């Protein structure tokens, strides 16, 4: 039955001969069309230009001014370093960070720092980052001694996912900041003031004492300008609190309840790991859906031994890591308690890295042999990467001698 029907099919569009002729002439007609066309090269690629503006591989910056915020924090204002080829700064979403490259005695390392200025400031020509000097901090000590007005700094484009999205988040934001975790909220607060973000922000800002509070006066001014949109509560963990309007203690469930509309807010957390551990426990009782709690990536993990199922017995050990990067193969020592990215940086291999939290995948590398411990709280690998042996070296630790293949950094 079907066979018969199939034979019945007899399509004619114009006439049998014209249809066949049209087929026969396809190639010749195509050739004619080509010949008639312009031979001008295409010179512009607008989407490529937009992509390069929004996501430059590198930005060359120079320090324009430095402001002391507290005894241990400074705000660096960075402008485009025209001499090195950067003419305009990439626009960003408030809450994003820059991965700054620092060359410490020949060792090239990167650190993510939240942009503390507003996107509008970028159009005026600057970014600001606020950095806290860590006690015995190898990198921040270097920065304190060496970063002066005029110092050139290489940066990534704006990166990260710690930003307000009106399609996802409540228009009532609760920011929970610990210490220098306040920096992205300065950008967010300014963006709210400038009308770039249509939302309200209640900021619970934990510091150890009065002197540690960053941006105190600035936030007071912003609050005055926008009493309906901005509210900042300082929570100080020191014994005696004299500053007006401050809470004493930690950011507990009670404090949160006292100041926030819990049911209708999206919580943005940024601070040290210890703050996440504490605040997340406090938040449990509110039974919030996961989508209501957003957390900035950890950055460098400091207390690796506390990570779940970390093999404590290997803590003192060091293994041999064979690294293939570009045409170079090098054997380098790798401490169990240090991420592979740190071991490679120390060996001056300059591997690619941005978030240093396992999140962005920029350092994604092939594990050719050996075992690694992958930090389970910051394992953002793709399923197939796990299957085919790819790791993110910034969240991986050696458990044996290993061999890895690392891509070289991108260049412009």
């Amino acid at each position, binding site marked *: 039955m079907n066979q018969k029907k199939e034979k019945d099919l007899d399509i004619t569009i114009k006439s049998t001969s014209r249809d066949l002729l049209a087929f026969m002439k396809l190639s010749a007609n195509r050739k004619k069309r080509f010949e008639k066309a312009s031979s001008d090269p295409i010179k512009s690629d607008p989407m490529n230009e937009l992509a390069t503006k929004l996501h430059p591989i590198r930005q060359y910056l120079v320090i324009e001014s430095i402001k002391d915020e507290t005894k241990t924090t400074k705000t660096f204002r960075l402008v485009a370093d025209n001499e090195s080829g950067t003419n305009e700064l990439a626009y960003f979403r408030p809450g994003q960070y820059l991965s700054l490259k620092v060359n410490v005695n020949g060792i090239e390392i990167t650190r993510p720092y939240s942009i503390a200025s507003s996107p509008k400031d970028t159009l005026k020509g600057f970014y600001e980052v606020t950095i806290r000097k860590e006690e015995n901090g190898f990198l921040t000590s270097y920065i304190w001694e060496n970063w002066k007005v005029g110092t050139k700094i290489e940066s990534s484009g704006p990166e990260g996912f710690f930003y307000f*999205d009106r399609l996802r988040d409540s228009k009532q934001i609760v920011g929970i900041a610990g210490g220098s975790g306040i920096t992205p909220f300065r950008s967010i607060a300014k963006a709210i003031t400038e009308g770039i973000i249509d939302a309200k922000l209640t900021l619970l800002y934990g510091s150890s004492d009065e002197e540690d509070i960053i941006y105190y006066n600035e936030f007071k001014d912003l609050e005055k300008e926008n009493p309906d949109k901005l509210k900042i509560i300082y929570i100080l963990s020191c014994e005696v609190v004299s500053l007006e309007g401050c809470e004493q203690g930690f950011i507990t469930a009670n404090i949160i309840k006292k100041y926030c509309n819990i049911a209708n807010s999206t919580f943005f957390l940024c601070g040290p790991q210890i703050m996440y551990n504490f605040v997340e426990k406090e938040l449990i009782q509110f039974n919030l859906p996961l989508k209501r709690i957003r957390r900035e990536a950890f950055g460098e993990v400091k207390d690796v031994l506390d990570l779940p199922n970390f093999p404590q017995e290997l803590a003192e050990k060091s293994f041999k890591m064979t690294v293939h990067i570009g045409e170079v193969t090098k054997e380098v020592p790798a401490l169990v308690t240090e991420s592979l990215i740190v071991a490679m940086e120390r060996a001056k291999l300059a591997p690619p890295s941005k978030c240093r939290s396992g999140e962005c995948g920029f350092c994604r590398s092939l594990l050719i042999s050996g075992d690694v411990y992958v930090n389970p709280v910051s394992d953002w690998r793709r399923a197939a990467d796990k299957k085919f042996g790819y790791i993110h070296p910034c969240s991986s630790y050696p458990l044996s001698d290993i061999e890895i293949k690392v891509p070289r950094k991108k260049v412009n």
Partner: protein
Amino acid sequence: MNITDSKDKNNRAYDAIVIGAGNGGLVAAARVAMKGAKVLLLEQHNLPGGFASSFVRGRFEFETSLHELYDYSTPENKGGIRILFEDRLNIDADFVPVPEAYRLIVTNPDEKMDVVLPFGVEDFIQAVEKEVPGSEDSVRKFFQLGKEIDEATTYIGKMRGNPDQDVLLKEHTNFLRTAAYPIDDIQDALNIPERARAILNAYWLYLGVPTSRVNTTVFAAMVHGYILKGAYIPKMRSHEYTSAIEAKIREYNGDVEYNSKVQRILVNKGKVMGVQTNKGEIINTNHVICNASPTLTYNNLIHPKSEVPEIAFKQINARTHGVATIVVYMGLDTTAEKLGLKDYSYFICDTMDTDQLYDSLINLEVPKVQATLCLNNAIPDCSPPGTCIISITSAFRPGAWDNVNPEEYFDVKTKIADGLIENFEKATGVQIRDHIEEIEVATPQTFSRFTGTYNGVIYGYELESWDSIIPRLQSMNDEKYIEGLEFCGGFGKRGHGYSSSLKDGETAALFTIQSLMKEGVIK
């Protein structure tokens, strides 16, 4: 840098260099490596796949661009891509079938329609008949034509592009008679009722050319192929099979280098001599398989520029670049079941007047057409228990985004995403907004950023009849302007789409292998 530099014996040298690890480039590199040639695959991003990839946000891993893989089919009755993956490349990647063909929702009151179409030609015809009584015979004829086109192209492929004209005339007449016409002409001739045509043409967005212009050979074969063989998707997103092909390339001693962008293809007297990367190094080779479009290759890569013949520019300028896309990826904190979303693939549009839709895609406004997926309805465990993944795709013609400034970019894309979500909610009556746990919006800028594709274009050159796959395949040997340079991918001989690009990679590899054999480089 002059060409003699590239002969420096300190330079690395390869039998073949593949530029770009997209669908075409991956397959090409694997096939050439498997023949024993020394292959280098250079990719500017740090991942394989090009458009065929995945990314992670929170607890979700999103598929970047694949909707459904064409021509995979069942283990018993393998399609071309399953044969390629299982038998030729022997890669370690799992695919699962897509449950139904699609649900088509047309929203404007005059054309209102909401219909779910099954796979299987006869079931499909009956589903259309139920929706449009009296359409059965004409729709069946349309599928019969698709089948005949498939047979004809298989025959032409078997004859390596040199079919016997008598055989074509005798056995493939319907293919011949329709090859020069757009789909509207064929559906007019078959007297397919308007509403049935709307249903049949729902896949139009996969080719991105309206039915008044899209070539019949490609379109009818595509509809027939999907409905006959069903569609598949990779279990762990496209990153699984692209990683599996990459692993295969390494297994055959091919080198794969990421973050390595080719800046120049070095040509001397019409012959490929090597490539230069943006890290400044020169790598010698006489064979380049290029997964970048001819648009980018001839305009930007060939060096020196005097080696590009005028006709290459004319060829680019005579054609129309296909559409770019916007994709809204969402991880929801509820299940598809709780939302009442039963289907995997949703075509939602205001009208099925595809000219009207196509014309509107030049405007920077919420597109009136979308292809939306609920991944969990094909892969239930693609996201954690209690969640699901929905992605909305729509298109823009190149040019629509040209004047967007960086400072308005995030607003523009959010507004358009907002509108697409609203249109989905209105059409399905399902509220998803309150459940958005993760959201990411990719635009033409995003695709340009990650793949370098010209102006964010994700489809190749438009498949109009004059430049459809038949004339492309017929002329492919006349259009090799530089010795040692082969193209593969969505801008290639077979047109765009995952399956076409994968197969095109195989064809490009075949040409390169033939040359390498002739030169005695491989046996």
